């Protein structure tokens, strides 16, 4: 798809909030929370597309939340409303959402791993799931992101430096240990591992969303593999979301 940037928001932390629509005016394809798109950043020096999670989707828009960390993601900072991007997707398998109304689901995001959890939170709340979010950051996150979540569900912030919310890791947050039916995590690998270990030790099931480096995003190159109980599988195709018991962590 060729998508046009409707709005580019430079958040105080430096993160980018992109709102895109179809350049030809057509509807946005259906997407599931936890799926991702491959974005071609033709104005950067890079060759390959970059995988980015779906932050939100409506019939007319796709929203992305991007942390500029390298060549392609930093080059996105120079894009403005009206510019176009090549986008492939939606790709991969998203988060589970077939929970009974009233069940308790905890979403844990670390850093820009928070991105796919907004769309998921909206989906869960729509289904009557009791949804809570814990958002871990090194330092205080952008208020715009917190406010957005707060409109749909309960959100708790943890920071490594204590500059906002709870001072400490997400797994140390008092709400982390409260009984839940399911937990869904996206963030840096050490954080996801800690969450998984803790949840498993309490018998709570859940999923993590992996961010392995990808070349194609289509299951064709076999570059993005993760070792699972089924052997090496493509994160882009069988994931990025995996159930805890699929991983060999």
């Amino acid at each position, binding site marked *: 798809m060729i998508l046009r940037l409707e709005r580019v928001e430079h958040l105080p932390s430096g993160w980018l909030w992109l709102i895109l629509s179809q350049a030809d005016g057509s509807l946005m394809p259906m997407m599931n929370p936890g799926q991702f798109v491959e974005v071609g950043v033709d104005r950067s020096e890079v060759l390959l597309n970059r995988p980015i999670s779906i932050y939100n989707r409506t019939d007319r828009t796709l929203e992305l939340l991007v942390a500029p960390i390298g060549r392609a993601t930093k080059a996105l900072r120079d894009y403005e409303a009206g510019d176009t991007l090549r986008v492939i997707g939606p790709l991969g398998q998203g988060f589970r959402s077939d929970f009974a109304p009233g069940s308790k689901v905890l979403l844990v995001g670390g850093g820009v791993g928070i991105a796919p959890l907004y769309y998921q939170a909206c989906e869960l709340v729509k289904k009557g799931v009791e949804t809570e979010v814990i958002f871990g950051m090194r330092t205080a996150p952008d208020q715009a992101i917190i406010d957005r979540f707060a409109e749909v569900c309960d959100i708790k912030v943890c920071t490594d430096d204590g500059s906002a919310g709870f001072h400490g890791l997400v797994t140390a947050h008092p709400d982390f240990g409260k009984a839940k039916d399911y937990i869904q995590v996206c963030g840096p690998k050490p954080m996801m591992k800690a969450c998984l270990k803790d949840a498993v030790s309490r018998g709570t099931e859940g999923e993590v969303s992996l961010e392995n480096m990808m070349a194609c995003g289509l299951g064709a190159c076999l570059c*993005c593999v993760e070792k699972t109980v089924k052997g*090496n599988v493509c994160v882009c195709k069988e994931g990025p979301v995996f159930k805890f018991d699929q991983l060999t962590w």
Partner: protein
Amino acid sequence: MVDLSTKLKDLELQNPVLTASGTFGFGTEYSDFIDLDSLGGFVVKGTTLEARQGNDYPRMAETPMGMLNCVGLQNGGVEHFIEDIWPSIKDCKSVPVVNVSGARIEDYVACSERLAELEGLKAIELNISCPNVKQGGMAFGTTCSGAHDVVSAVRNVWPRHLIVKLSPNVTSIVEIAKSVEDAGADSVSLINTLLGMAIDVERRRPMLSTITGGLSGPAVKPVAVRMVWQVAHAVGIPVVGLGGIMNANDALEFIMAGASAIEVGTANFINPRVTIEIIEGLKAYCERHGVTRLMDLRGII
């Protein structure tokens, strides 16, 4: 009407655009994006006798205008291909080609023998040039006698079109090409990836789990065009050219250098419709230049 058709000896292709092994899955991964029937052919994932798990992650690093990979021939084995994949691609109008890899001559032979039972399979591409596994065939592909031995052994059991894929990681690719021609290859394809390496200086670690890996993409194209040109002038069998092809002009470079067909690899990752755009671009070029048969341009340099 422009005639884009081409022939690799007796193997007829409706156009010269194929896909490169390891970059196009089994073809079906791309069927949401393109009609497989529109291609000249497609070369599926490297297939070995037994299933292989491949190398550890990380298997990929992007480099200037290219990428390194060390996938290491992860595949489900030839039986998996025959049972689970072949039925879904065998009726394609384009020509499916199986890329055969192995560590020992016996494995190449056993794998090819099994594939020979598939009536509709018109061609295999023998990968004697994978840089990513110990004895991943590159051991065979880097000496004339090794290449000759494995190709003649497979020639005895594989009755139809035999493409042999050559490694650029050799002193003289022309000499290797001559030995595989002598051993009975019907055509040669080149180039496989160039052995390369990249280091993450912040972490002070190699970017790939295997330290070295295969370089592909636009960065390798000038080397590939040169090698195709040299080989096309030195052997009598058709040459399939590949390495860094991103668009129709790149494909034309290979054809003018002597290639009867081309394969598109890394470019599929960036634009899954690139093969179709290349076919359209070749047609448009011919129309613009008053060329009625694309293959009239073959080897004009």
